[in-house]
């Protein structure tokens, strides 16, 4: 029997979407609903698991299995679900506060373990659902109800954190750019292991316009460094600018092709399997640099934790033989009283 052909509407639940008008989450929801029918996974095996925050309402709007858990713990719940049933295709939806503040420890460990999950971090650099406090990704000086004179703490960059934690698949995209996001999510999905995707997401109420420098099409050529494996790191209106590695400072720098004898041969060619390069790209920041969009890092041929768990189990079963509860209870020294 052929499975019925599904459309994006089949993945929309009957629940009224309750995000604020203009929220970047709408665009992400639509992109994912459109992606789902194109994935080679039965609908009933798709699972969305979230923590707490605006983004974590996501599962309610997907007509799949879903679990809206508690603050910061989505990855732990997802890890347990994946271990219990590796056939499930699990997406974790989380935010900058959920994944990097209260749940930072779980993000670290899910990534280093390489649990086979798609981790979508909606980064809006603010706490939305609690009405606008500074988050761990807010820029220094962010004015918010909890930081009326400007925030003092240094923000962390999600992709830098993920690479530091040992993530094997790290990508970055933008909420309203379905054309960029769709292939990235497809690759994240296909990746057997923990795939980490940071999504720049606009909060129109508490942090409006924070990503305007990169979202706005007018700035896009200058502010986006679109990554393609095997292609030189070029940007600018006519792809006239590029990223070069300065061999003396071991830093990336911007050069212009045709100036000072620079040719395309001087430009760094993107290599997704190069972790050092990925770390440098993850750290590039506006206004000094364009920001990297695409797959920063993808380490292939690494077994996922979940696969390893079951491989080990098969190995033990072959060694120890069939399990028998009554036999287990009778192991060790026993004696009979008659």
């Amino acid at each position: 029997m052929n499975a019925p052909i599904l459309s994006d509407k089949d993945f929309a639940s009957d629940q009224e979407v309750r995000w604020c008008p203009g929220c970047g989450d709408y665009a992400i929801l639509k992109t994912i609903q459109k992606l789902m029918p194109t994935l080679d996974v039965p609908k009933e095996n798709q699972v969305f698991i979230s923590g707490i925050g605006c983004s974590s309402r996501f599962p309610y709007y997907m007509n799949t299995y879903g679990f809206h858990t508690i603050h910061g713990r989505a990855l732990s719940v997802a890890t347990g679900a994946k271990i219990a049933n590796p056939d499930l295709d699990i997406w974790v939806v989380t935010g900058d506060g959920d994944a990097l503040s209260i749940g930072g420890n779980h993000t670290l460990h899910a990534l280093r373990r390489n649990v086979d999950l798609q981790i979508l971090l909606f980064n809006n650099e603010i706490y939305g659902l609690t009405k606008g406090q500074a988050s761990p990704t807010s820029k220094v000086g962010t004015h918010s109800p909890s930081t009326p004179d400007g925030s003092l703490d240094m923000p962390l960059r999600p992709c830098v954190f993920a690479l530091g934690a040992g993530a094997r698949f790290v990508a970055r995209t933008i909420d309203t750019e379905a054309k960029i996001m769709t292939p990235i999510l497809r690759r994240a999905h296909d990746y057997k292991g923990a795939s980490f995707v940071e999504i720049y997401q606009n909060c129109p109420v508490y942090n409006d316009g924070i990503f305007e420098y990169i979202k706005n099409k007018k700035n896009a050529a200058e502010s986006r460094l679109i990554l393609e494996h095997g292609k030189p790191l070029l940007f600018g209106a006519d792809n006239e600018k590029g990223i070069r590695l300065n061999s003396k400072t071991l830093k990336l720098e911007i050069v212009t092709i045709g100036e000072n004898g620079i040719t395309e041969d001087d430009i760094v060619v993107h290599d997704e399997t190069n972790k050092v390069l990925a770390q440098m790209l993850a750290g590039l920041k506006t206004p000094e640099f364009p920001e990297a969009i695409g797959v920063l890092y993808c380490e292939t041929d690494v077994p996922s934790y979940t696969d390893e768990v079951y491989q080990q189990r098969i190995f033990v079963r072959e060694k120890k033989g069939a399990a028998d509860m009554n036999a287990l209870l009778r192991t060790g020294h026993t004696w009979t009283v008659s």
Partner: protein
Amino acid sequence: MSAVESSDQDGAHQVSDVVVRFAGDSGDGMQLTGSNFTEATALSGNDLATFPDFPAEIRAPAGATFGVSAFQIYFGSEDVTTAGDDVDVLVAMNPAALITNLKDLVSGGLVIVDTDAFTDKNMGRAGYESSPLEDGSLDAYRVVPIDITKRVVESVKPHGLNHKFAVRCKNMWTLGLVMWLFDRDRTATIANLRNKFKNKPEIADANVAALNAGHAYGETAEMPTGVEVYKVPRAEVAPGLYRNTTGSEALAYGLLAGSQLAGLPMTFASYPITPATSLLHTLSGLKQFDVVTFQAEDEIAAVCAAIGASFAGSLGVTSSSGPGISLKAEAISLATQVELPLVIANTQRGGPSTGLPTKTEQSDLNQALFGRHGDAMLPVIAAATSTDCFDAAIESVRLATQFMTPVILLSDGYMANASEPWLVPDMADYEAFPVTFETNPEGFTPVNRDPVTLARVWAKPGTPGLEHRVGGIEKNFLTGDISYDSDNHQKMTDLREDKINGIANYIPEQEVSMGETSGKLVVVGWGSTYGAIHQAVKRCRQNNLDVSHVHIRYLNPFPRNLGDLLAGFDTVLVPEMNTGQLVDVLRARYLIDAKPLNKVSGQPFKIREVEGAIKSLLEA
């Protein structure tokens, strides 16, 4: 040791029961000595109970009083349910072990000491100003001073060990001597040593040589008057196949058995914490069964992974001790809100905070009953003895899966570490309680319920047509969609409460462990106080006192007849290893003037402490 009853023709004394305590440095191998002696004692047909008592430090500085590790065993020819009140035979491997344990030795009791360890330095470190072996401070006891270290080194010389490794065999030498004293067979211990050191045969040979040398010393040396072989007659116990088990091992096996009876794979997610960690150790070694173990990054991740596993259709189980359970509290409330099965095993220890990590207490009852945000009721079950952990664990799985609820299973450090003989259960005697997952999309909502038990349906991801969402937000009574409606929240809160209270209809009525269903006094216990209360009530009843024993397994909801049962007694006494937690609940629930008897010393109740309380209440 009870009075000498008779002497047989070999001159061996017969005694009905004996308490032996091995005490030494935490690196002296006292726990290994104790467990081998326990096994030999069980094999000889005595009933027994043990109490391993060790410090939190893994290797405390040699000779320090805070580093003393002890193992106590009580064995006899009648039913033994505690590790004994007073020590008859104390083995003290050094001055620190002597000074910290002597107070528990009966007058006239036997002390075996290693004189080689009684150096000025060691005695000074233990706090002795003069040698207790010479200054008359041991005159009330029978002392057997032996230069054990020297003899051990001598006996293992043929095996070529250096001095350091040779000295380490002194626990086996001492064990050999004590085995001689109680006429124990060394075969099982020798087999254990050969197995333990199978990759280091010279170490195995040396330990066996030391064991045999200690035994030979007993046979040939001139012992002080009255020190000779004691024989303890076999206990009359139910026929069948026996083994020894600790509570922790029985609990692990019970969880596994429970998941089999439910027809579910188990996902066990935990984080190391004393004294609960051995559950993770045991289950992670049983991958041939349908169990996956997960050592999480913290307590919260552990409970959340277990909840995730239950969501996916597995039996999620997590374990910890008090402080870790506090960390899990938020997630446990989530499990009550989403109504998923979850077993939370709490091996209680002395608190608050880090408290006494290796000592026992029952001070997490309030936490189990009330320690969550919101109205988050759940069933609470307490095991009573080491072997009872098996059945208590099975029952926890049954309630969790049949009622779609988290269940807290309480044990404690005492029963987790203590071992006792176990009439090995046969799984054929247990009734299965297979879980039925929802598969029919017709009229499906995630809040469809069994109209009688109120348990909601369990529809696991992977089932076509049943796609649905669960979550922490209050849900609509009829659809399961999120709802902030005030009337609906009232209804849902009432429903969750009714479901848990209704479990009282599916658990046995409260039985009387010993005695009558009414009378002057009932001693009400829960958890590991069982043994001490049992013996105390038994002794009092032998003295014709009107006292009965009720031991509560189901702490929430209580058995449906408990209030009526307690009302039939003039006085209710509640001994607990806390400052009075069950007693408050009983007073509040049944409006009875229950009396507390509390102890929080990190040590189990002595029989005489409970006996004394019974007598003073009956005489008042």
